[in-house]
């Protein structure tokens, strides 16, 4: 399998060579086919080697673009450390095995020393056992002895890894409030609290956060945001400049529909891009982007790679359980009846370029994706909302401009618990701090900006000034 590249014979570009033999594999034209992909028949060995070639093609293309960018910026492009994000599901399992196989095939070529494509390949995994039942050790065994770096969802609330500050939502209402008598006007306000005020274990806090959300759509969005934050942090902590994500073509097409429906159109180009450098110091690549879910399933089966079922909030739930579930059902249903739907959608959206405005935008403090500057004003022109109830406390500061449209929705529909509003993890406070320090506000609200900066800073006065997390 390792030498699929070298075995790949040059294709004679003649009509005769390209002609299909009815009822036979499209590649070797002699064997009985075992699978059909987008109307093409493949036998088992040809399918496996075609998959390897396709993966390497996508990965090399992304590597080439990243290297060109690095050469432009730094003058050099040495092999970098690579982190493979492994959930344990079929797509990331196939990806890990394919990239390891690629690295080995390059270094094991006979004779001369060949520089490997990557300095090292490590596995990054986010443990979601705080929310779901996952068989213990199953994912670690997929990593097969490679360096296994792990973070848990509840780490976002543990003081040992984050500063002991939290962000409590005081008011979250989409209704626009422009009444002059309200000093802290705006629909979304929050206050910074210290973790030591309340001794809730991190796991419990995480569960409280998710149970306060109104729908599985919101829960899935927030889970995505936390997972991305942890993966980026894990990659940085292990000095990996490249992070491989296992989104398959089916997953990307599904996300196009679900992210758009959730109001994430502004950040969509970053979230489905073949390569994205939105997060400082970590470039994300999606090398499985040309594989539909069916190809992944057959590849794993025939290459002998076992994966696990990674549960989500809507596992075993009806199709209407969440926007993501319904989008998946729509996309997969279309693809069954019109076999190239997924590839067509993926190829189309990969042409999307982020707008200059999005590249310059501040990251949303919850999801970390670019937040459209005037999401709140834009909404107030479109939405008929109820007037917000007066805030119970006036201690909060306005965070509307730090939230993207979609995260505003999530917060608006969440319930505040008995002990006050929703409590968001410390990284939200870090992000507010980054905004206030690094991005001076427009002159019109410079005063308000300065007040906020001082409020945030006082919580950090006694903290160690270690590296910031995005």
């Amino acid at each position, binding site marked *: 399998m390792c030498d699929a590249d070298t075995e790949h014979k040059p294709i004679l570009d003649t009509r005769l060579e390209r002609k299909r033999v009815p009822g036979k594999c499209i590649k070797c034209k002699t064997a009985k*086919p*075992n*699978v*059909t992909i987008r109307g093409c*028949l493949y036998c*088992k060995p040809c399918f496996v080697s075609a998959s390897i070639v396709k993966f390497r093609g996508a990965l090399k293309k992304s590597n080439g673009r990243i290297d060109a960018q690095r050469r432009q910026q730094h003058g050099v492009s040495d092999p970098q450390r690579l982190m493979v994000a492994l959930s344990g599901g*079929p797509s990331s399992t196939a990806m890990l095995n394919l990239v390891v196989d690629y690295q080995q095939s390059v270094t094991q070529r006979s004779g001369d020393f060949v520089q490997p494509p990557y300095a090292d390949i490590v596995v990054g995994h986010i443990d979601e056992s705080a929310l779901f039942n996952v*068989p213990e050790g199953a994912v670690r065994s997929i990593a097969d002895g490679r360096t296994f770096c792990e973070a848990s969802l509840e780490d976002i609330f543990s003081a040992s890894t984050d500063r002991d500050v939290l962000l409590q939502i005081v008011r979250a209402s989409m209704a626009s409030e422009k009444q002059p008598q309200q000093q802290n006007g705006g629909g979304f306000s929050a206050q910074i609290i210290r973790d030591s005020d309340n001794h809730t274990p991190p796991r419990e806090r995480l569960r409280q956060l998710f149970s306060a959300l109104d729908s599985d759509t919101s829960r899935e969005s927030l889970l995505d945001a936390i997972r991305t934050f942890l993966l980026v942090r894990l990659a940085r902590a292990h000095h990996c400049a490249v992070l491989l994500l296992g989104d398959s073509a*089916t*997953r990307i097409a*599904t996300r196009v529909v679900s992210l758009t429906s959730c109001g994430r159109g502004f950040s969509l180009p970053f979230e489905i891009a073949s390569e994205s450098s939105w997060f400082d110091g970590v470039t994300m690549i999606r090398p499985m982007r040309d594989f539909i*879910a*069916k190809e*992944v*399933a*057959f590849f794993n*089966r025939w290459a002998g790679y076992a*994966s*696990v*079922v*990674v*549960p*989500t*909030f*809507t*596992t*075993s739930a*009806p199709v209407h359980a969440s926007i*993501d*579930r319904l989008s*998946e*059902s729509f996309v*997969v*249903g279309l*693809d*069954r009846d019109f076999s190239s739907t997924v590839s067509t959608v993926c190829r189309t959206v990969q042409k999307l370029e982020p707008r200059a405005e999005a590249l310059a935008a501040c990251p949303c403090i919850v999801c970390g994706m670019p937040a459209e500057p005037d999401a709140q004003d834009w909404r107030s022109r479109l939405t008929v909302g109820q007037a917000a109830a007066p805030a119970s406390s006036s201690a909060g500061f306005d965070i509307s401009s730090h939230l993207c449209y979609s995260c505003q929705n999530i917060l608006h529909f969440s319930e505040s618990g008995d002990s006050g509003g929703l409590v968001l993890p410390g990284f939200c406070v870090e992000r507010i701090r980054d905004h206030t320090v690094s991005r001076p506000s427009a002159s019109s609200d410079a005063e308000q900006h300065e007040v906020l900066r001082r409020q945030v800073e006082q919580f950090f006065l006694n903290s160690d000034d270690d590296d910031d997390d995005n």
Partner: protein
Amino acid sequence: MHKVSVTLKFVSGAELLIKDEFRAQSSKKSGDLEFKHEVPAGTENAPLRMKELIENVRDNLVKGDKDQFYKDGKLRPGILVIINGSDWEVEDGPEYKVQADDVIEFISTLHGG
């Protein structure tokens, strides 16, 4: 009535759709399900096809909401069928005539199973 015995496998999340009582019959220790199942054989004029086998699975094996497995006369999109190691789409799909001792595998490719 004459019956045909086939081996059924449910993997990658498809096993979540099957009634718990079949877990005891499974020869696999992991989450995957694999067991023998008997279905009424068809007649000479109307042999047992995959379509009937899938309807039999839906009626007897699938728990809860049957639409999650089979809806509007079709298997739910996202569930793959493998007959004796090959994609069922190269084997006539729902029209495939089921033989004794066939190994039929259901794989879910849906996110989260």
